[in-house]
């Protein structure tokens, strides 16, 4: 499944870059994120409780940051294990561009889901993913408007 989109964030590019690399900000902005730990400059471990309607599964994810080119672009690569619920893996290319009104963040992600979640939840994953992405950016907007 490919997920492509963009969003303008009302903040300067270097601040957006810093926020996207701050585990505390990520934890506050990712829906259902219980814990996020930074193992090294480029490695994160996250625990996320994903809710797909009646489904509630805890995923432990390992995420690495690649091709870092601050403050313009980077690549996120990750995989998550949800125990009996299944697994998810994917990558996302992210670019930040200075535009009028702030910073345009473009993402191009490729995600695969396997296991039981994929069997019973395939018809729901697209719309749930969109909801989580929108919630992330709404929270990020709120972070900047509260912090400025």
């Amino acid at each position, binding site marked *: 499944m490919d997920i492509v989109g963009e969003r303008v964030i009302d903040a300067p590019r270097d601040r957006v870059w810093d926020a996207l690399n701050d585990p505390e900000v990520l934890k506050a902005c990712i829906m259902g994120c219980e814990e996020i730990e930074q193992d090294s400059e480029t490695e994160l471990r996250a625990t996320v409780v994903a809710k797909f309607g009646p489904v509630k599964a805890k995923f432990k994810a390992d995420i690495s940051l690649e091709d870092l080119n601050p403050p313009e672009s980077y690549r996120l690569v990750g995989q998550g294990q949800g125990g009996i619920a299944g697994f998810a893996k994917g990558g996302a290319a992210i670019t930040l561009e200075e535009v009028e009104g702030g910073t345009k963040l473009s993402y191009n992600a490729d995600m695969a889901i396997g296991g039981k979640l994929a069997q019973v939840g395939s018809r729901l994953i697209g*719309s749930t993913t969109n*909801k989580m992405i929108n919630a992330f950016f709404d929270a990020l907007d709120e972070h900047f408007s509260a912090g400025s």
Partner: protein
Amino acid sequence: MEAFNYRKAGSADEAVSTLASAADGKFLAGGMTLLPTMKQMLATPDTLVDLGGASELVGISRDGDNLVIGAMTTHATVAGSAEVHSAIPALAALASGIGDPMVRNRGTIGGSIANADPAADYPAAVVGLNATVNTNKRSIAADEFFVDVFETALADDELVVSVSFPIPAKAAYQKFPNPASRYAVVGVMVAQTGDGVRVAVTGAGPSVFRASSFEDALGGNFSASALDGLSVSADNLNEDIHASAAYRANLVGVMAKRAVAAC
């Protein structure tokens, strides 16, 4: 399935207080979605609070110009009710087309709308008929109730008590069912109500929505031909192995016309 505590509540108040004392509890209505999910171990609540003993939540009554349906009333009861047939035949027809006989005999209106499955039928009736959802705390207008995929305005500890449907002048529901599950690939409720024509679409998007351009056209000329040339945008519509977003967008027009013709 993981072990869990089972509590049977005798009233709505008892159900709410029992849920409040559980660490990770869920209300159990008909269980047509929750129980299969638990069997797959995709949800593992520690407590289920069964609403089946709360008789106040069951039943169908007329209250002036409204038809009031208790949250724990099954689809089969709504489908077979003489009261519903005489007041809002479209609602009885919708209920008769949900799932299979087992789902209709166990599944409930409150459970269906609280779950807010994007392909469920009842959300189209609630929004299309401009119903009011009554909970243990407040009354919620249909347009405010459904928020997003599987998301409603309900708080975690809030229980649907009944749904109050204003009786429309005319209404009809048409759906293109998935042949296996009978879930709506697209379903459209069209109604002439006290505050104009309403067109509610389920199955097509992340959540039920109103087709306002269809409503405007039908407000001027209530006939299927008034919808000629109109369409909804395929942006953000659902896409899965059953239908693409563009196919669903086309179905919205087709089902809306059929519904108008059936009014």
